[in-house]
């Protein structure tokens, strides 16, 4: 049984390690083989980028060698896939090598697409790459007062990020003693301040308490970088001194180029996590078109289901589990408090009061992440 995993992010790595544990005997006796193809030899802890933007982490803390996170029985190549031949059951990589498979797991993730909005690349800062997060931190350090506007593109990775950004900005300027000189204005594309209703209900009084101005139904049309103005499709505009954008995201180019899914999101069964119409192709994490958050946490829970099902199909000819839409998100409510949201397809999140121990739990998780992708947690 040749299992091919394309993508070495959170989802792909957990599927690979979890499978390697479950199929250790089959791998040892050469009945199963797990191969991973990734675009990079490095693995990035993406939630750390927000900490980087506020000087709470340094870039080196975000990375580990991908090979060091994988079970030794997994064959790993840094050679991204360019062609998917789903009917013929093989892929072709950038180096021109062909990889045949019996089961394919696509875990290629997503990417930011600020270019979808005119002026956003030039006019807005983000924290979705190492470079942009460092650039934002330098700007925040030099910021002495004025209006900071936050705009949100859709769809975007980590739904909690805009809210966490607001809390972090509030605490950061409070600690610098210039909070009264900084006006924070938050814009959100739908009719409330967060897509998850319970999060919106919880965050609104918090925003009021912190003195955050917010405008809902603000879908960014363009950024006028010359005049420092951001305009909405709804006809309103906001002048800013610093614009921070959660840019819209899309799936990877190769997914779209191979006609696997519109905008790079692959149509996926919400329970089995199989690509629609296939019984040999699984999709995990951001790459799916599922109505769940594009977070490492969703990828984690999905990956466990996929690994367990692939292993059980090999061992007893049938899958054993369904994905229930489970997501668990930490929410940093400042630099020393946090809460969390847990939800699934059926149950909305029920947020608890922020606390310091919860913040420490998040700090601890930043380290335990590496244990998590190794398939232990």
């Amino acid at each position: 049984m040749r299992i091919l995993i394309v993508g070495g992010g959170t989802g792909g790595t957990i599927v690979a390690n979890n499978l390697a544990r479950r199929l250790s005997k089959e791998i040892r006796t050469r009945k199963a083989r797990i191969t991973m193809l990734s675009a990079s030899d490095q693995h990035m802890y993406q939630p750390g980028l927000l900490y980087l933007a506020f000087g709470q982490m340094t870039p080196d803390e975000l990375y580990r060698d991908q090979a060091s996170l994988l079970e030794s029985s997994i064959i790993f190549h840094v050679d991204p896939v360019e062609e998917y031949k789903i009917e013929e059951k093989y892929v072709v990589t950038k180096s021109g090598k062909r990889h045949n498979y019996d089961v394919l797991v696509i875990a290629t993730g997503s990417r930011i697409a600020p270019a979808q909005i005119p002026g956003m690349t030039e006019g807005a800062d983000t924290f979705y790459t190492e470079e942009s997060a460092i650039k934002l931190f330098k700007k925040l350090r030099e910021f002495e007062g004025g209006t900071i506007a936050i705009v949100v593109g859709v769809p975007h990775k980590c739904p909690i990020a805009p809210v966490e950004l607001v809390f972090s900005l509030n605490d950061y300027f409070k600690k610098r003693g210039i909070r009264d000189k900084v006006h924070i204005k938050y814009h959100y594309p739908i009719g409330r301040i967060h897509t998850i209703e319970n999060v919106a209900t919880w965050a609104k009084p918090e925003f009021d308490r912190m003195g955050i101005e917010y405008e809902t139904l603000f879908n960014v049309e363009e950024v006028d970088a010359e005049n420092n103005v951001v305009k909405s499709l709804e006809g309103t505009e906001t002048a800013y001194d610093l614009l921070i954008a959660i840019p819209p995201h899309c799936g990877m180019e190769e997914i779209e180029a191979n006609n696997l899914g519109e905008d790079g999101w692959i149509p996926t069964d919400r329970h089995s996590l199989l690509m629609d119409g296939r019984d040999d192709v699984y999709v995990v994490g951001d790459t799916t078109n599922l109505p769940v958050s594009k977070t490492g946490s969703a990828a984690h829970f999905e990956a466990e289901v996929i690994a367990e099902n692939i292993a059980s199909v090999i061992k007893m000819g049938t899958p054993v589990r369904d994905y229930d839409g489970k997501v668990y998100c930490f929410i940093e409510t400042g630099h020393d408090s946090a809460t969390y949201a847990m939800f699934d397809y059926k149950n909305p999140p029920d947020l608890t009061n922020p606390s310091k121990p919860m913040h420490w739990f998040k700090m601890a998780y930043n380290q335990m992440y590496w244990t998590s992708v190794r398939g232990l947690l």
Partner: protein
Amino acid sequence: MTTENETPDVEFSDVDLQQLIEVAQLITAARDAMSDEIVTRLSGALSEGVSLLDRITRNEGLMQLLQVLDHPDTQNWLVALSESLHVASQEIASTPPTKGGVLCLTRVATEPGTLEALRFVAALCGNMSQSLREQHRKGINNT
């Protein structure tokens, strides 16, 4: 069975309360002393420790080695090895450097210790080759 109006029949003495206060003070002190850096360092060490433990316990070879090391005979061997290491290192340190040459080599080769060492290494290698061939045969036959 208790009703809503009944209060539990539990009494706290001053000593009990004082002890509770002390525990609360201890927790508060620990909480105040804690910082993000401490939490990060501790959880980092714990995380790596757990990963290491996991790798060791799932490594068939290492587990087999641990079992062998745990055997009384092997413990005697380990004691002998550590004592020999100690004595040999002292001997080497206190003996003038060898002059080398064929005669010197012949003298060392005829010493009983050298022959014992060769016999031990030969037995070790012979058994290891046999075990490796056996494992390889099992692997191929199972595919």
